[in-house]
């Protein structure tokens, strides 16, 4: 993978992105900008859908750290997408407390409804479904996480259907405007 890193050109960071980066860097001592790498990578992912090698290089240059150190982070933490995913990445918790309240059933239902395997993406590029580990919301099982930042609780099959239909609708609406 390191050859990939040297072969790419850094992504251009917009002013808005740089401003968001700066807010994160400001939390840490002046000589510890690297501390902001987790937040910067999650910002990049929110804006682009995934963390590309070009984005890793841009973050590395912004924070003044080796690109490889950025890759160490992006590849260690489960939530970073190192490959493009669907427009809506849905993670379903299947750990034991959720399993006791049909977390596995929620995952199976989503996959069946979308016609994909666990980890797969729908042909229209709208949905990716993944099995996740504990999200710290076991009392609300079944629990799913949409695009890293929106947790949905008590997701029985009816609500999962509403979620999928609603997201599909909002994507269509957005495309129309």
């Amino acid at each position: 993978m390191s050859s990939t890193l040297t072969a790419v050109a850094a992504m251009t960071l917009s002013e808005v992105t740089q401003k968001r980066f700066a807010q994160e860097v400001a939390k840490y001592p002046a000589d510890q900008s690297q501390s902001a790498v987790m937040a910067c990578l999650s910002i990049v992912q929110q804006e682009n859908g995934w963390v590309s090698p070009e984005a890793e290089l841009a973050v590395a240059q912004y924070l003044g750290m080796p690109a490889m150190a950025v890759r160490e982070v992006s590849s260690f933490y489960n939530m970073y997408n190192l490959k493009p995913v669907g427009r809506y990445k849905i993670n379903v918790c299947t750990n034991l407390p959720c399993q006791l309240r049909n977390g596995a059933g929620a995952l199976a239902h989503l996959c069946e409804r979308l016609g994909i395997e666990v980890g797969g993406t729908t042909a229209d590029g709208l949905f990716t479904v993944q099995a996740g580990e504990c999200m710290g919301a076991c009392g609300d099982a079944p629990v799913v996480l949409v695009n890293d930042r929106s947790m949905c609780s008590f997701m029985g099959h009816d609500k999962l259907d509403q979620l999928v239909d609603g997201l599909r609708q909002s994507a269509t609406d957005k495309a129309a405007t």
Partner: protein
Amino acid sequence: MTEQQLLSQFQAQGLESCFHDRHISPQILAGLNGNNWQLKDYEARGGYQALRKILGQDGSEGLSQDQVIAIVKESGLRGRGGAGFPTGLKWSFMPRQFPGSKYLVCNSDEGEPGTFKDRDILQFNPHIVIEGMAIAAYAMGIGVGYNYIHGEIFKTYERFEAALEQARAAGYLGDKIMGSSFSFQLHAAHGFGAYICGEETALLESLEGKKGQPRFKPPFPASFGLYGKPTTINNTETFSAVPWIIKNGGAAYLACGKPNNGGTKIFSISGDVERPGNYEIPLGTPFAKLLELAGGMRGGRALKAVIPGGSSAPVLPASIMMDITMDYDAIAKAGSMLGSGAVIVMDERRCMVKSLQRLSYFYMHESCGQCTPCREGTGWLWRMVDRIENGQGRPSDMDLLDNVAESIMGRTICALGDAAAMPVRGMLKHFRAEFEHHITHKTCMVAAHV
């Protein structure tokens, strides 16, 4: 409807998990309704009075650092994140006179399967954490703090950021707090999906912008912590207990619980109960009472087993659970641990092999890979339990499981190895027959297993 409007419809409102009248003498979750998380609401509940008191901004002469630590020691407060270490003692380890930077870190990386209390505290009462941290910083002479929040609860991270802004604007954080000589800067950081970062030194590595691999101890964080500086790390709920202790005194807090187990504790109950959720009750409350608060067993089924302190704690059978009280010492005596207070309840339909299969997968997945016994051992454990569950187990697997678990225990840098091994040993100790049945008959002992 926009995406955000749609998604917000599915967001938990805390009604089920937190805002109910089934707490007993709550301190942290008292009076919350989901809409009263803001600064003015917290102040109306008596918030920031403890900070005012120690800084002598309430007309009194204030409290010295030693006095604050002495009160926390007297309270019997023990770490609420899992280890149960006495908080006052931990605070006394900090080299207060050390002239350079010192750091305070709140561990809100709540990923222990079964635990969801810190989320509700941060979401619905964030200022209690800020006040607790400010008091701790004062007691240890610390100028800067970070709250590291589990990446999966991003809305909660944003809520905490909003609360920080309010506290700064009101002068409860920042330079010369409330006109005193005490200054404390507090910031929020977030993880992004790594269970291991709940381990305190892995968390420090992550805060430094690295992969979260635990550090060898010693040196302990009190001497070599964040950026190599003296650092104290406590759990969210631990900090949240502090304002009440300062206002009401250490003895009053201790009196809420039982000796050596002071105060209230928030138990997160999940699994086969009628009403999963958070229940704040005094330590020493019988498990039977807690189960009753949670609405009893779902569907009136019989209790089979309980994992009393998060997935890393050894499972205990119903017969033991129904006789014990919920506190550090009683659960330890019964052969398990109170841990983070995550109570996973399983009814008579549950297959223990399948349950362990899922937990073993989790530990294999989350091992950071640094220590061989854990990296390799967690994989061995999962593969063996998996084949037993799938009817391919061998009679020799029983001893081999125990042997691999034994070979991990105590042989790794951090506690994740132990956390993977302990559930295995707990299961074999109390439910051995179920594993043997699986191996012999290649099928489940319970009819409708999950």
